[in-house]
């Protein structure tokens, strides 16, 4: 199972905890994780990536294994530790303002 960590506003919206577990079939990529996330929690559609273009929203970042993966191509396979669930895939609201 893939472990995805959500920011607090999306936890409340999806009525879930800090982390959700997802079954992802096929290659584990940003796209396949988000597809599975949105299938399980349809209310999250449009909040992390655009409905149509599937582009990541400007103030959303993706982290895993201590790395910022936000600028990676969405269909590039993620590290095995994410695929086997030992590392979390983190959806983070970017720091902004002061």
């Amino acid at each position, binding site marked *: 199972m893939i472990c995805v960590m959500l*920011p607090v*506003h*999306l936890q409340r*919206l999806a009525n879930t905890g800090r982390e959700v577990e997802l079954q992802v079939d096929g290659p584990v990529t940003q796209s396949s994780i988000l597809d599975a996330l949105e299938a399980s929690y349809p*209310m999250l*559609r*449009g*909040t*992390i990536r655009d*409905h*149509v273009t599937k582009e990541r*929203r*400007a*103030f*959303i970042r993706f982290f895993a294994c201590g790395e910022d993966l936000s600028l990676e191509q969405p269909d590039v396979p993620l590290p095995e530790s994410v695929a086997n669930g030992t590392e979390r895939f983190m959806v983070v*609201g*970017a720091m*902004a303002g002061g």
Partner: protein
Amino acid sequence: MSSVRVLVGTRKGAFILTSNARRKKWDINGPYFAGWEIYHINGSPANHDRLYASQSTGWFGQLIQRSDDGGKTWEPVDNKFVYDGTPGTHKWYDGTQHPWEFKRVWNLQPSLTDPDTVYAGVEDAALFRSMDGGKSWQELPGLRSAKGDLWQPGAGGMCLHTILLDPVNPERIFIAISAAGAFRTDDGGGSWLPINQGLKSNFELPDPTADVGHCVHNLAMHPSRPGVLFMQKHWDVMRSDDAGGMWYEVSGNLPTDFGFPIAVHAHEPETIYIVPIKSDSEHFVPDGKLRVYRSRKGGNEWEALTEGLPQSDCYVNVLRSAMAVDTLDSCGIYFGTTGGQVYASADSGDNWAPIVHDLPAVLSVEVQTLP
């Protein structure tokens, strides 16, 4: 006994304020959607328990929430606002053309007769409609054909912020956009006509009397007389007696005619309310005094309403969607400020009292009068 439910959208969530018809003692509920901007929360005239809320942030984008129990519980409905066809371009701040990009929903206006039909005014300016209670949204693209390439954002963005549904003619809708002007459809939203004749924007437009481009801040009508419209423009308070065919100025003796909201008394079609703001570069009330101005003659002759409102050291603004009226026998007037106060008058504006002092900045106020 009748009661009122005041729906308040703020920078950091929604609040619902309720009282009986005396409007002396209030219950405050919220925040709903804490931490999110609630540009608008509005109720269906056909079913008072059906509410819609526009919820957004810069991080997570736009959501639409719906309640079927008067705001006790909510469920997110569809948030997919996709412009019809190829969106095209509009005028940007520097005069160049810029692609149409959806940013947020400013205004939600439920149908007068069907709780499942609701209109959404969005930024970049367009009008969407849902006919299934918010489960899907479709643009009414004819609006952007009304010289949309000449529309230009105001300081707050290029937003469709006002939607007035004609209670007599269901095919007629009025909308207003900053900074494009006012528009009317007479065929249910298929085709639209700019209705800006008589407006003069001497400092904002190269052609002060252009067809489109005027920074209209708000429109209001009395339901018994939908052909008479009142407008708070960027500068100038205006009136039309022919459904927007021609406008004339009714600023009269106002201390300043810049402002945002405008409202009409529930039982007196010639009694209107505004909140003058010092200027376009100083968005607060003049002289540190929070004064609502009332005209009982449909404009030109205005009186300051001050009883119960702060008359020194007050520097708040009242945004365009933040004033509303109830329909009780003694008409109630309500407005919210950028300082987080919501004020109410249960006697047509003669006397005011705060319902709450310390909410986040208020973006919108709507009122439901409940049987």
